[in-house]
């Protein structure tokens, strides 16, 4: 059943979508450079006030060293390699914990989302465990697993698990039934339906879960490393506290926040790239 070319060509003059609408508009405008710079105004002012307060002696320079001291400490740590060592140790725990917890979350969330039987079997248990504050499990994990990497990675994995479990479940359950029907009409089997309809439709919510889980994992990392570690940014922070080196405390917090922000930007870009098809409100 092939269409002859002469019938397929636009024929009548009334046909042709160009008359119906103008060509597709660009989906989203990028924020202007000026607007990005405007976001830096407030932090700059705060830094200036802080510097003035410490240098003028209005604030105790031991308890609140000026930003310049913090940057010097940071620079020295960068040069002598301690910072890289701590970043590496923390990054390894964070990524490993997130991957283990996140993968389990997506897996179990998909299972309960796709199967009613799995939902009745598992969901109540997961929801009950969710109400346990996972950071409160730290002492238990140390008692059970010792002081090595295992309790830290477990804690981070626990923190990453729940956001991804919940968002994957919700993402799958929110897939438009009408789109599932389209898949059925074209005789997609269960695997193809999952791959071609359910996963792409659930992706926005799963990615929101990824961003949230990365944030929680970051938090869990700090807690885990403060409880007892011999390396990592949290260990560096604890050292600073013990030796009353507030500059080290502040420097490690700064690294924490910058690294967290960098990862968030990466995930946001990934999200924008993967979800460019969405016609969502981008803010006014």
């Amino acid at each position, binding site marked *: *059943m092939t269409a002859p070319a002469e*019938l397929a060509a636009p024929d009548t003059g009334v046909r*042709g979508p160009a008359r119906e609408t103008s060509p*597709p508009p660009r989906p989203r405008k990028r924020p202007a450079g000026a607007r990005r710079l405007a976001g830096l105004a407030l932090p700059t002012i705060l830094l200036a006030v802080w510097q003035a307060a410490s240098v003028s002696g209005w604030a105790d320079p031991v308890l609140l060293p000026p930003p310049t001291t913090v940057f010097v400490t940071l620079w020295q740590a960068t040069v002598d390699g301690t910072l890289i060592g701590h970043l590496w140790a923390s990054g390894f725990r964070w990524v490993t914990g997130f991957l283990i917890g996140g993968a389990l979350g997506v897996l179990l969330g998909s299972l309960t989302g796709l199967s009613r039987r799995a939902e009745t079997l598992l969901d109540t248990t997961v929801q009950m465990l969710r109400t346990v504050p996972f950071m409160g499990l730290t002492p238990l994990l140390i008692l059970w697993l010792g002081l090595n990497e295992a309790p830290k990675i477990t804690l981070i994995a626990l923190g990453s698990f729940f956001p991804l479990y919940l968002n994957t479940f919700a993402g799958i359950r929110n897939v438009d039934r009408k789109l599932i029907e389209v898949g059925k*009409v*074209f005789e997609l089997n269960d695997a193809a339906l999952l791959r071609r309809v359910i996963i792409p*439709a659930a992706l926005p919510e799963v990615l929101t879960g990824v961003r949230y889980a990365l944030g929680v994992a970051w938090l869990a990392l700090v807690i885990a490393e403060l409880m007892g570690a011999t390396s990592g940014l949290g260990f560096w922070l604890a050292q600073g506290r013990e030796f009353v080196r507030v500059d080290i405390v502040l420097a490690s917090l700064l690294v924490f926040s910058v690294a967290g922000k960098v990862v968030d930007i990466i995930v946001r870009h990934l999200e924008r790239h993967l979800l460019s098809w*969405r016609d969502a409100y981008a803010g006014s």
Partner: protein
Amino acid sequence: MSASLSVTGFSREFTTPDGPLLAVSDVDISARPGEFVALVGPSGCGKSTLLRAIAGLDLEHTGSVRVGGEEVSGPSIARGIVFQEPRLLPWLTVAENIGFGLRRRDPARVAELVRLVGLEGFEGAHPHQLSGGMAQRAAIARALAPAPEVLLLDEPFGALDAFTRIRLQEELQSIWADQGVTTVLITHDIDEAVALAQKVVVLSARPGRVAQVLPIDLPYPRDRAGEAFLGLRRTLLAAFDLIHDPAPVRTTR
């Protein structure tokens, strides 16, 4: 190639909180291979129920639904369906949506269908960038892509403005003439049925029953302002008790 269609003794009951509700009662419909049949009726006459049964999306009915002599036992790519909403997958481009039902990637077939429905230049656009009429064009192309034996249309132009609707009706007519596919159109638009169908099946409301079968033997494209067209329109309006003047009414009951 195009197949015959026969629905015989079709009834469908729904269970509601207030007890069973008979939506369609003992309906017979038939279409020759390549025929264009329109089912017209008020809302609640079970039109969509019938179409879903023909598509194989609903099997909870009594009576038989046969396409090409074979009982329908589930959805099949041999029966293309266009819903009231375009139901395009928002993460796919127009071209990817049109090729969605193809077993293998076939850019030539997709390009052919893009041309057939007049969406040249929009292959790479995403559904949210299309107007309602363009999205429905893409949906028609998607349904036709696997070369189905039967094309089912469930009020496909119901949500469009009057001008776009007429233009799309004309395009559907030429697509049907070109592809020769057996077509079942569900509509509540009497003009649409008279403009497109070779046979109009009038359904009464709740429970849906066949009230009248009206063959239409006018050449295409049909003159919507012509004497014959208006006469048929009058007949159908009369079938729904929508004419209140005493003018003589031609019926082919």
